[in-house]
């Protein structure tokens, strides 16, 4: 028991430090996909929560994503696309539209409240069939549709943006849709967070 408690304490301490690192990176604008993924292992993201979402919220988000874009044998599912990791990066990315980022997170809590109100159960206590019914119900409200639409757009980004952003590994989304990407493709130096820094570093020296 004591050993377990120690582990929990250590884990919490480790997570606290990790959250501080991530938050500092966000504040300084240095959190690229690479450093984000280095800072957060997939296990931490999916099971234990992170600095933005607790474990319950992570579970709800993953479940809703799987309903929006199921692994149904027709092309890749969200795990194939690394879509959850991609969305967690977007939610940390201050360059993405803040209103949508906030709505994406707030909608998770709203979804849990909806099932508590309508089914008297937390979302994660619902069976798979009940979860699918709940999502269909969410989509009958303006707020729910907007929330689901934002999550689905993030999934599409994980499906179709350059793999350098963390989704679409090995172009799996492009291959599924018979899409030929343009050339040259994105590079680490020219990915969106870095491109202006790279461009300005190349300016000729001029007298002013």
């Amino acid at each position, binding site marked *: 028991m004591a050993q377990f408690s120690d582990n929990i304490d250590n884990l919490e301490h480790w997570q606290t430090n990790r959250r501080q690192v991530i938050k500092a990176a966000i504040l300084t604008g240095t959190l690229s996909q690479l450093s984000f993924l280095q800072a957060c292992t997939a296990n931490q993201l999916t099971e234990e929560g992170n600095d933005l979402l607790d474990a319950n919220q992570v579970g709800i988000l993953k479940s809703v994503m799987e*309903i*929006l*874009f*199921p692994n*149904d044998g*027709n*092309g890749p599912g969200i795990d194939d696309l690394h879509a959850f990791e991609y969305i967690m990066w977007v939610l940390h990315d201050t*360059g*993405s*539209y803040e209103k949508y980022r906030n709505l994406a997170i707030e909608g998770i809590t709203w979804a849990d409240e909806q099932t508590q109100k309508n089914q008297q159960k937390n979302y994660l206590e619902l069976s798979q069939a009940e979860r699918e019914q709940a*999502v269909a119900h969410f*989509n009958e409200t303006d707020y729910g*549709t907007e929330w*689901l*639409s934002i999550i*689905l*757009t993030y999934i*599409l*980004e994980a*499906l*179709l*943006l*350059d793999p*350098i*952003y963390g989704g679409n590994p090995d172009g799996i989304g*492009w291959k*599924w*849709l*018979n*899409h*030929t*990407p*343009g*050339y*040259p*493709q*994105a*590079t680490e130096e*020219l*990915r*969106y967070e870095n*491109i*202006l820094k*790279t*461009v*300005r570093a*190349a*300016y000729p020296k*001029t007298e*002013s």
Partner: protein
Amino acid sequence: MKYDVCIIGSGAGAGPVIYELAQAGFNVLVLEKGPWFKTEHFTKDDMVATRRAIYTPAFKDEFHVLETKDADGNWKAVPTHESRTDFWNGSAVGGSSNFMSAYFHRLKPNDFRLLSEYGNIQDGNMVDWPITYNDLEPYYTKVEHVVGVSGAVVPHKHLEPRSTPDYPFPPLVTNRISDWFTAAGAKKGYNVIPAARGIISLPKGDRNACYLSNYCGSFGCSSDGKSSSRAALINDALKTGNVEIRPDSKVFHLETNEKNEIIKAWYYDLAGLKNSVEATLFVVAAQAVETSRLLLMSKNPSSPNGLANNAGNVGKNLIFSAVATGSGFIHFDDFPAEKIAEINNPMTFVNRTLVDFYEIDDSQSGKKIKGGIIDFLIEHSNPMPKAVKNKKDGDRLVYGSEFKTKLHTYFTTRKKVRFEAFTDWIPNDNCYVTLDPEQKDKWGDPVARIRLGYHESNKIPGEFLAGISKEILTEMGARDVSGAVSTGPTVNLQAGGCRFGNDPKTTVLTKDCRAHEVPNLYVTDGSFMPTGGSVPYTFTIYANAFRVAEKIIDQLKSKL
């Protein structure tokens, strides 16, 4: 240091002036608000180009206030950071020409005398230009050769007079669906012909030919095949040693002396610090909206209402292109496999146009009225916009296996064929730029407030051309053919606000695009255009800037 010329902006309206003045030996300073992307910085990254829109300012930093009519007919003003309606086109050295699709049509002779040819329209401000097509023709030719235009001249009833028989660059390779458009047009009795592009099909100097990346509009070009101001003109101008480019330099004030001559341009640098430069002549080419905004912001003792605005004309008669757009789908299972094999490939260039109806007989009025052109194309390659459109079925969000099937079907079993018809945007008293009294940009300066008055008569030729276009798409065998007039502005095709003309009471600029009121100020972007013609503007902006560059050189030489 005092420069011969300070040029504000570096897009299609500035490039020819930079190029010509540098070649003539004058020292030129370019103040460009945006960063300086080089060719090697452009990739086909949808995140950079469209999702995060790195080539345009962030809404929180710079935005506009747009006035549109609500359902009750009242004008309602909404900042673009609220509506998320981006009114920028490309903030970079070379301006939005870096990201253009580059459909290059010349104006026709009648475009220079719309009032004389077709009469005024009630509540419209139609006028004739102070120059003729013949005055501009040599400069269209110059653009074709110096900037680079590819295509093939074919005879048709509205072919404008040309001093050269053909374009200097042969047509670009196209998707074979081009032939389908031509054949369908012929069956309906319409003459669908090749469309010229501001994209070179052969190498030119340091520029490589178009490499058919299929990611063209909205993306920078990695071969310099696209004839942007940066690739086609500025890079060569820099080789003279007479040009200095200062990127990230946002001009906010033009200071004048007691003679109403500009003596300094004031700008913010990247750090937000205020700087000033001196020059003999100043050229503003910041794209129509921002050019009017800068002049209106430049209040001086001799111009209390803004520079060149003592007669109150700056910002008035802003114009866009009036457009009708539509589409249909070629379903692969409607055609033999060998036919589909011709078109089911990544090639996105179509380069076909219909000019038969540049002038049309209006059945309602019984008169000839101005028509326009139709460009035919297929959907852009970048996949995100296509995928996002598939999320909705009407107002319903589609998701789950239904959505995946819809998405896969859309991408793999059909090709979207499209048309864009361009007609004149009738200038009117409800389309103009002012300074917003409350909203400020990141530097604390008033943003442009744009009233977007649309003249209902724009719809007449638009609906006619949409009907022709739908006939052709249907004849091709497309399904779900639809199309309609759009009453919104074409953000990427903007002009007017500083009309040129002979009367200083009603125009801002002389016919040489020098300000009537300010002897050392020229405006060389699309602001000068009193009417726009029924074609995209970029080719004409380039040509006019070459024309005006000669006038600027003459004025500079007279001062030496």
